[in-house]
C-alpha cells in the first residue's frame, strides 16, 4: 500500500507536535513546515522511521522572502524521496532574516554537503556543524550573498535602458 499523505502527517505530528505544521498538498507533492531548531531531528526521523523511509535527499536550496516578517525571511527547502513507496515530500524550514541559522544535514546525507555550501554561498544561511561551510560557486573574497533579493542583478546606476520594459525590474511587484 502506498504511503498516504495523511499517514505522514499523523506520524510527524504525533512525534513532533507543533514543530511540524502547514501540511498542504501542492500539485503532486506534500509540503510542510518544520521548526528550524528541530529540522535535523525531523529529517532523521523521516529518513529512519520504518514506515516513512524517506531515504533519499533529492535537493536542498534556499529561498529569500524579504516581504515576510523577520522570523520567516529565509527558508531552507529539502526535497526528500521515499524510493520504496515512491513518494516525494517538501520540507521547509523558515529562518530569521538577521541570523539565518539551521543545523546541517551532512550527518544524515553526504550529498547535503555541497548543496548546503551552495545555499550558504547564495543566501548566507549558516548551517551549524557543517564541516566545510565556505563559498563554492562564487569567489571567496565576495562579501554579499548574491541570491538575496536586495542584490539587483544589474547595475542600478545604468541610465541607457529602462529595465521595466524588458521584464527585468529587480522588484517583481513593480511590474504590475
Amino acid at each position, binding site marked *: 500500500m502506498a504511503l498516504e499523505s495523511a499517514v505522514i502527517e499523523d506520524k510527524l505530528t504525533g512525534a513532533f507536535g507543533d514543530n511540524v505544521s502547514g501540511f498542504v498538498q501542492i500539485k503532486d507533492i506534500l509540503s510542510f513546515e518544520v521548526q528550524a531548531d528541530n529540522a535535523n531531528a525531523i529529517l532523521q526521523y523521516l529518513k529512519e522511521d520504518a514506515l516513512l523511509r524517506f531515504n533519499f535527499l533529492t535537493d536542498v536550496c534556499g*529561498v529569500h522572502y524579504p516581504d515576510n516578517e523577520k522570523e520567516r525571511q529565509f527558508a531552507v527547502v529539502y526535497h526528500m524521496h521515499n524510493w520504496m513507496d515512491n513518494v516525494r515530500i517538501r520540507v521547509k524550514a523558515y529562518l530569521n532574516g538577521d541570523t539565518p541559522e539551521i543545523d546541517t544535514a551532512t550527518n544524515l*546525507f553526504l550529498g547535503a554537503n*555541497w548543496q548546503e555550501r551552495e545555499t550558504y554561498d547564495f543566501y548566507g544561511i549558516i548551517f551549524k556543524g557543517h564541516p566545510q561551510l565556505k563559498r563554492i560557486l562564487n569567489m571567496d573574497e565576495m562579501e554579499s550573498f548574491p541570491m538575496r533579493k536586495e542584490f539587483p542583478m544589474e547595475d542600478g546606476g545604468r541610465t541607457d535602458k529602462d529595465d521595466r520594459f524588458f521584464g527585468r525590474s529587480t522588484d517583481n511587484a513593480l511590474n504590475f
Partner: protein
Amino acid sequence: MSDLLLPPEERYAKIIKQRQNEDGSELAILNLGPTHPATHGIFQNILLMDGERIVDGEGTVGYIHRAFEKIAENRPFYQITPLTDRMNYCSSPINNMGWWMTLEKALDIEVPKRVQYLRVIVMELARIADHIICNSVLGVDTGALTGFLYVFQYREKIYEIYEEICGARLTTNMGRIGGFERDWSPAAFKKINDFLEEFPPIWTEFENLLMRNRIFMDRTIDVGPISAERAMSYGFTGPNLRAAGIDYDVRVMQPYSSYEDFEFDVPVGKSGDTYDRFCVRSAEVWESIKIIKQALAKLPEGPFHANVPDYYLPPKEEVYTNMEALIYHFKIVMGEVPVPKTEVYHPVEGGNGELGFYLITDGSRTPFRLHFRRPCFIYYQAFNEMVRGQMLSDAIATLSSLNVIAGELDA
C-alpha cells in the same frame, strides 16, 4: 578554524610535513585542471600525491558559474529556456523539455499525446548523444581514440535531426509551453529513421572495440568504485547510481511525457566502478533506441501543441499576418500573462541523472525562485572519495566516466 576551511595547499602542507617526518617520503600537490584536457570542462582538482598515488584531493568548482538562478529570477518564462540549454549542453533538449514540463505542471496544461511522444523521441535522441560523448571520451581518456572518431559522427547526425526540428544544433532552445514550435517535417522523420538504421551496427562495433578489450578492462575495472549505499547517500542518480546496483530511473518511478506507454529495461551494474558505468551507458543507448522505435511506431496523429493561446507563442508566419497572433506574441514575450502563484518540483531523467526544476511563482512575470537540481553538482563531490588511494591515471578514467559537464556543474 577547521582544517577543511583552509585552502588545500595549506591543509596539505601539514600532512606533507607529517608524512616526511614519518618515513622520509615526499608528497606533492598536483593541480588537475582547471583547464586540463582530461577535466572536460573548467574545474579543478587539487590532489595530494604520493608518487603516482592519490592521497587526498579537493574539487574546486565555480569557474564558469553564470548565476543562472539569479538571471532566471529576472527573466520572463520564455527567456529562461536558453539558460537550460547551457547546463548539460550534451543533451540540451532534455533540459528544454524538463523546463517546459515544469511550467506546464505549474499551469495545469495537458499536452496532446503526439507532443508527448515527439518529446520522448527527442529526449531519447539526446540521451544517446550524451552517452555517445561520455563513453567515447572515456575511451579517449584511456588511450583509445579510434572509437571516439568512429561514433562521434553519429552525434553529428543527431544534431542534424535537432536542426531539422528546431533550426539549432547544440543549444537547441527547442519547443514551447504546450508543445513544439512547428510539427516535425518528413525530412526530420527520415533522418531519424536513417539514424536508427545506420547507428546500431556502429554502436555494436564500438562496444566490441572496448568492452572485451584487455587494456580497457584493466584500466576501468575496480577503478573509481562507489558502493550503492554511499552513492545513495551522496545523492547519485542516473547511470552513475545504476552502475552501483540501484535501478532508480525517473522515467520509471515517476513517468512523464507518456514514458509509461513504452517497454524498456533499466540496465543496472554491480560494482559501481568505471567499467560498470561504461556498460550501463552503453546498454542505455540500446534501450533508448528501443523507445524511439516504439514511439515512432505508435506516434499518434493530432495537434503538435496544446490549445493555450495565453502561453503558446503563435507561429511566426501568423505573427506577421494575423493581428490576434501579433497581440498574443507581444503579450507573451513581454511576460504579461503571468504564471499563477504556485510551487512545483518536476524531475526528468537527464543524460546523467535526475534533473529537477524547483519553481516558485508569485503571480508575476518572472519566477520568484527557480532552483535547478543539477545531477553533476550533486555527485561530483564524491569524486575525491572515489579516487582516494588510486593512481592518477585512474582519476582521469573515473572523472571521465562520471560524465561531469562543467556547464551543469556550475550553472
